[in-house]
Every structure is written in structure tokens, then in C-alpha cells.
């Protein structure tokens, strides 16, 4: 439509020019690709580090990942590296708790990692401090000693 306007004549240059401007303003995206869209999908990469409770890394331990919608069949399997590290990107459409099991010769643990809905970003399984362990041990041992004392009191 505006191309035809250009051929019409010099006197009408201003009008044609105006038409062009209006046309450009009306169809900006069609005429020139100055507009831009960004589509995004955020994906979370999960990194786990598996260590024995002695602090030694579980090198080459096998990892089995279970998606929230199918806790019976593995979604992904893999192997930790030398430092006990393993990274994977869960399917972000499957929100819920992902179970990551690490196992090496019958030792291991299962981590329950929430994905989506603003779930936690870091976490650990077990993880007591040395002080807590000592305190808990002392309490339990005192229980055993108390039992021993109770049942030996008749002899005295």
C-alpha cells in the first residue's frame, strides 16, 4: 500500500513520507526485526557429594536417581567421581522430592532433594557435629551403665 504511494509524485512526498512513518509505526515487527523475545526455562543442576562418616569420599560409588512421579524405577543412574561428586539436571517439570541413592559395596545413603516450589538449595543427610555425637554416645552409654548398676544392686 505505501509502496504505491511513493510512485504517485513529488508534490505528495510529505504525505507519502507520513504514510510510511505511520505504516512503519503500525507494523514495526513485521517490517524490521528490532523486537526481541526471550523464552526461558530455568533448570536446576543438582550436585551431590558423598562421603563416609570418616570424611573419606565415596569414590566411584554408584548413584541411582528416582524422579518424584516414579519412586520404583530409576530415572538416571551414574557413578561418582574420585571426590564422591555427582551432578545431574532433573527434569524441572517434575516437581517434588527427588531421591538420590548412593551406594558402594552395601554402604551408602539416600538423599531426598526437593525440586521446584522454592525448595531448599543445600542440605545434607545425617550430619551431626562431633560434639553432638559425643554427647549422644555418653547418654546412651550412661543408660547401659545404669542398667548394669540396677541389675547388680542385689549382690551388694
Amino acid at each position, binding site marked *: 500500500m505505501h509502496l504505491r504511494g511513493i510512485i504517485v509524485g513529488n508534490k505528495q512526498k510529505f504525505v507519502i513520507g507520513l504514510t510510511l512513518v505511520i505504516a512503519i509505526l503500525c507494523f514495526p515487527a513485521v517490517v524490521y526485526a528490532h523486537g526481541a523475545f526471550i523464552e526461558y526455562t530455568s533448570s536446576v543442576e543438582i550436585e551431590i557429594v558423598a562421603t563416609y562418616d570418616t570424611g573419606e569420599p565415596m569414590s566411584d560409588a*554408584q548413584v541411582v536417581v528416582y524422579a518424584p512421579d516414579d519412586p520404583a524405577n530409576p530415572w538416571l543412574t551414574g557413578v561418582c567421581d574420585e571426590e564422591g561428586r555427582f551432578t545431574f539436571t532433573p527434569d524441572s517439570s517434575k516437581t517434588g522430592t527427588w531421591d538420590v541413592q548412593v551406594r558402594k*559395596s*552395601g554402604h*551408602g545413603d539416600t538423599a531426598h532433594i526437593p525440586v521446584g516450589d522454592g525448595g531448599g538449595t543445600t542440605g545434607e543427610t545425617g550430619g551431626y557435629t562431633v560434639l553432638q555425637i559425643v554427647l*549422644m*554416645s555418653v547418654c*546412651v552409654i550412661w543408660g547401659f551403665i545404669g542398667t*548394669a*548398676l540396677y541389675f547388680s544392686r542385689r549382690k551388694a
Partner: protein
Amino acid sequence: MHIPDGFLPASVCAAGYVATAAVAGYSIYKINKQEDPREDIPKAALMTAAFFVVSWIHIPVPPSSVHLILGGLMGAMLGYYAFPAILIGLFFQAVMFQHGGLTTLGVNAIVMGVPALLAYYVFRLKNVGNHSGPAKTGLFGFLAGFGSIAVSVVLVVVVLLTFVPAGLDLSMERTATISLIIAHVPLMFIEGAFTALVVVFLLRVQPRLLGVA
């Protein structure tokens, strides 16, 4: 050698509990037949405490580390008390430290408790024959300690490799498990020697402690 939660199918965990209940029931039945069932409870309680803490004392055996289990010593010293004692010790280890798990408690009790009872039967053989001096006591103490670890390792390996979950590379797990067995061979000797030392020491200073009926 504690099997954690989630490593065994539910049916195996249930079977473990049934077996544990049976063995614990039999042990308690045997204890009740003794003249004074309460007499050895203090000893059993203190041995349970030792069993409970000893899993924190790691002995480095390259490339990994192992810890004493005391199954053989408990069998030798406690007789039928050993099984309930180990069951209670494992319960506290599972609850407090996540060593093992509550669902696998039954299986773990069988894996460690039954060898302890076998160790008791072995240790009792020292009374066969005329004299039971320190050398003989030490020898059977060694056999009790050594044997209990050996049987435990065999049991745990059979359980682990029989019930490998789908999705796990069986051959890789088998290789890792074989290295676990190798790591426990020195432990068999350490545990045997430790058990022998303790029973010989007790024979000298407090022989009454070894006189389990």
C-alpha cells in the same frame, strides 16, 4: 557392615525381622532356663555399651578402614545374652548415628548376632577335654573372634548381592563388594587376636566372667 535403609526390598526387611524375633525369642528362652537369668545382665549391658561405641573406633586398613565389631567376644562372654545385646546395640546405632537403619535392623541383627551365637558354641568347645589352660582358652577365643567376622562378612555379602536393586550395575557392585571382603580379612585376624587377648586376660583376673552356662 550395617546395611542402611532403602537398600533392601521390603519383603527382605520383613523376613529379617521375623528371623530376628525367632532368634531373640530362642535366646531369651535359653536365658530364662538359667538358674538366675538376671545375674549376667550387668555384664551384657556393659558389653552392649562397648559394642555401641566400638563402631566409632576406626582401624585404617588401606584403602579403606574397618572397625572392631566384638561379635565373637560378646558370644564368648555372654552366651545367649549376646543376641539381645547386639540387637539393642544395633538399634541405638541406627537411631543415633544412622549406622544401619530401622527397616534393616532385623537383617543386620541376623548378620551380626547369629555369628556371635556361633562364636559362643565354638568358644564353649574349649571345655571339651581335660584341661582348659590359657593357651586353649586363647585359641578358642581367637577362633570365636575370627569366625564371627568371617560368617558376618559372608552373610552380608550374600544378602547384598542377592538383592541388588534394579538400575544398579551388578558387576560394579560386585567388584566393590569383593574389595569390602578383602578389607575385612585383616579385621578377622585383628578381631581374633583381640578376643583371644581379652579372654586370656579375663581367665587370669576374673575367670567368673567367662563362666557362662
